[in-house]
C-alpha cells in the first residue's frame, strides 16, 4: 500500500521540478540579444490602445456557453468515431440521441434569439 503511494509521491516530485529545470536550462543555454521588435507583443494579438481594464459586453458569455456545447460534443464524438466499427448499432443510436439533445439546445438558443447580436 505505502509502496504504491511512494511511486505517486516520486512522480509528483519529478512533475513539479521538471518545468523549473527545463526553464533554468533554457535560460543558461539561449543567446540573449534583445531588440525592440523582439520585445514587442506577439502571437497574442496587438498592442493595446488605452487601458486594458475595460468592461466587456456580458453578451459574450452566451456565445462562450454555446461554444462549450459543441466543444463537449466534439470530445465525445472523436473516441466514438475512432472505435465506430467495433461499437455497432447501440453506440450509433446513443450518439444520435446525444447529438439530438445538444441540437435541441442549439434550437432553443436560436428560437430565443440568443444568436442575434444586440
Amino acid at each position: 500500500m505505502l509502496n504504491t503511494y511512494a511511486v505517486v509521491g516520486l512522480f509528483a516530485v519529478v512533475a513539479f521540478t521538471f518545468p523549473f529545470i527545463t526553464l533554468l536550462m533554457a535560460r543558461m543555454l539561449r543567446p540573449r540579444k534583445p531588440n525592440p521588435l523582439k520585445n514587442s507583443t506577439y502571437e497574442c494579438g496587438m498592442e493595446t490602445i488605452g487601458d486594458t481594464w475595460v468592461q466587456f459586453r456580458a453578451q459574450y458569455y452566451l456565445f462562450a456557453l454555446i461554444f462549450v456545447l459543441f466543444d463537449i460534443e466534439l470530445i465525445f464524438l472523436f473516441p466514438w468515431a475512432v472505435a465506430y466499427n467495433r461499437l455497432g448499432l447501440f453506440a450509433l443510436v446513443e450518439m444520435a440521441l446525444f447529438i439530438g439533445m445538444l441540437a435541441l439546445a442549439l434550437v432553443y438558443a436560436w428560437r430565443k434569439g440568443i444568436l442575434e447580436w444586440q
Partner: protein
Amino acid sequence: MAQMIIRLTPELVLMVTAFVVIGVDLYTRRRIARRLLPGISIVGLILAAVAAMAQWTVREPVAGTLAADAFAFYFKVVAAGLVIVVILAGTAYMQQRTRFLGEFYALLLAATVAVYIAVSANDLITLYLALETLSILSYVLTGFLRGDRRANEAAVKYFLYGAAASAVMLYGFSLLYGLTGTTQLEEIAQRLLAGEVTSELNWLAWPVVVLSLVGLGFKASLVPFHQWAPDAYEGAPTPVTMFLSTVSKATGFAVMARLLVIALPTLSQYWLALLYALSILTMTLANVIALRQENVKRMLAYSSVAHAGFILLGLVAITGLGSAQPFTGLDGVLMYVLGYTITNVGAFAVVAAVEDARGSTTLDDFAGLIHHSPFLAAAMLIFLLSLAGIPPLAGFVAKLFVFAPVIRSQYYVLAVVALVNAVIAAGYYLRVVKQMFFVPGDAATSTWRLARGMEVALWACLIGVFAVFFFMNGFTTWTVDAASAMLGL
C-alpha cells in the same frame, strides 16, 4: 435491454416531458403555451408516478448502478406528488413575475429526474452525479427571477455552499473508494465486512463518515451545514422554496439512508454517534432561531431545518435489521418525510398566496388574514397544527413513528430533547395563528381571490394532511415495505 427500459420508465417519461415542454414553449404562441405547459408537466408527473407505482414489488439492480426497489419507488411517488402541488400552486405566482414559464417547468421536471436517479442510485459515482445535477438545477431555480436582487444573493450563497459541500463529500467518497476499491454500495459493504480493509487503515473510518455526511447534510440542511437554507428559502421564488424544502430535502435523506444502511453498516457505531449529535444540534438551534423571526417565510425556513433534525431521529434509532415491522426507525424516516412534506408544501403555498396579495411575507402581512380569506387562514391553521404535531393530522403520525423507535431504543435523553423542541416549535407556529385570527389587519377588509391552481393545490394538501392520519394503516404498509427493501428483507 427491454427490461432495463421498463425499469427506467419513470425517469424516461419525465425526461421526454421536459423536452416536450421546451418544444411547446418554443413553437406555440405565448398565450396557448401558458395554458398548455402546466397541464403537460402534470400529466408527465402522474405518468411517472404510475410507472413507479406499478413496479412496487420489483427489487433488482438496473444496469449495475441503479436499484429498482420499493424504497426508491416510494420516494419517486412522493416526489411526483409534491412537484405537482408545486406546479399547481406556483403557476399563478410565476406568471406574474417572469416571461420564462417554459424554462421553469422544464427545469423543475429535470430536477425531478435528478431526484429520481439520486433516490435509486446504487453506486457512488451515479449518486454523486445525480446529487450534483439536482444541486445545479436548484441553484438556477433559486435565482430564477433575475431582476430580484434577493433571489440573486440567495442563489450565489446557495451555489458557494453547495460547491464546497459537494467537494468535501467527493473527497469522502474518494477515501471510501481507496479503502474498498469499488464504488458499488453493496460491494463496499461486503469488502468492509470481509475485513479486507487492514487494521492500519481503520483510522480512515471517521474521515469517511464525516466527510460523506457533510455533502448529504448540506442537501438535507442539517446544522451546522444549514446556513444557506434560510437565505435560499427566503430569497428564492416561493414555488422554488416549496420544492427545495420538501423534494430536495427528502432526496438528501433518501440518499443518506441508502448510503449508510447499504454501504456502511459496519461503520454504524461512527455514524450513529454523529447523527445523534447532529439531530440534537439541528432541532435545538433551528427552533431557537425560528422563535425570533419576523418574516413568516424565513420562520418556516428555520422550521424546515428543525424538522430535518426530527427526521434524523428515525435514522439514529434504526434497529430491527431483520424484521418487517413498523417502528424500526427507517420506516419512521419515510413516514416523517411524507407527513412533513405534504404539510410544508401546503404551508409555503399559503405563504405564496399571501405574498401575491401583499407583496411581502412579514408577520404583519398575516394580520387579519381571516377577514381577507377565511379559506387561506383555515388552511394555514391546519398546516401549522400539523407541523406542530397535533392529532388528527399528518404531523402527529410523523412524530409518532420517529418517537416510538427512539423510546424503544432507550435513547431517553434524545426523546426529551425532541419533546422540548416540539413544544418550542408550537410556540412560534402559534404566533402566526394569533396574527391570522386575533390581530386586526388594515381597516379595509377586502376579500382576496385565489387562483384556481392554488385552490386545487391547497385542497390536495389539506386532504393529504388528514388522509395520512385517518389511513395510517395503509400508509404504514407502504413505509414498512419500502424500509424492508432497504434492510434487505
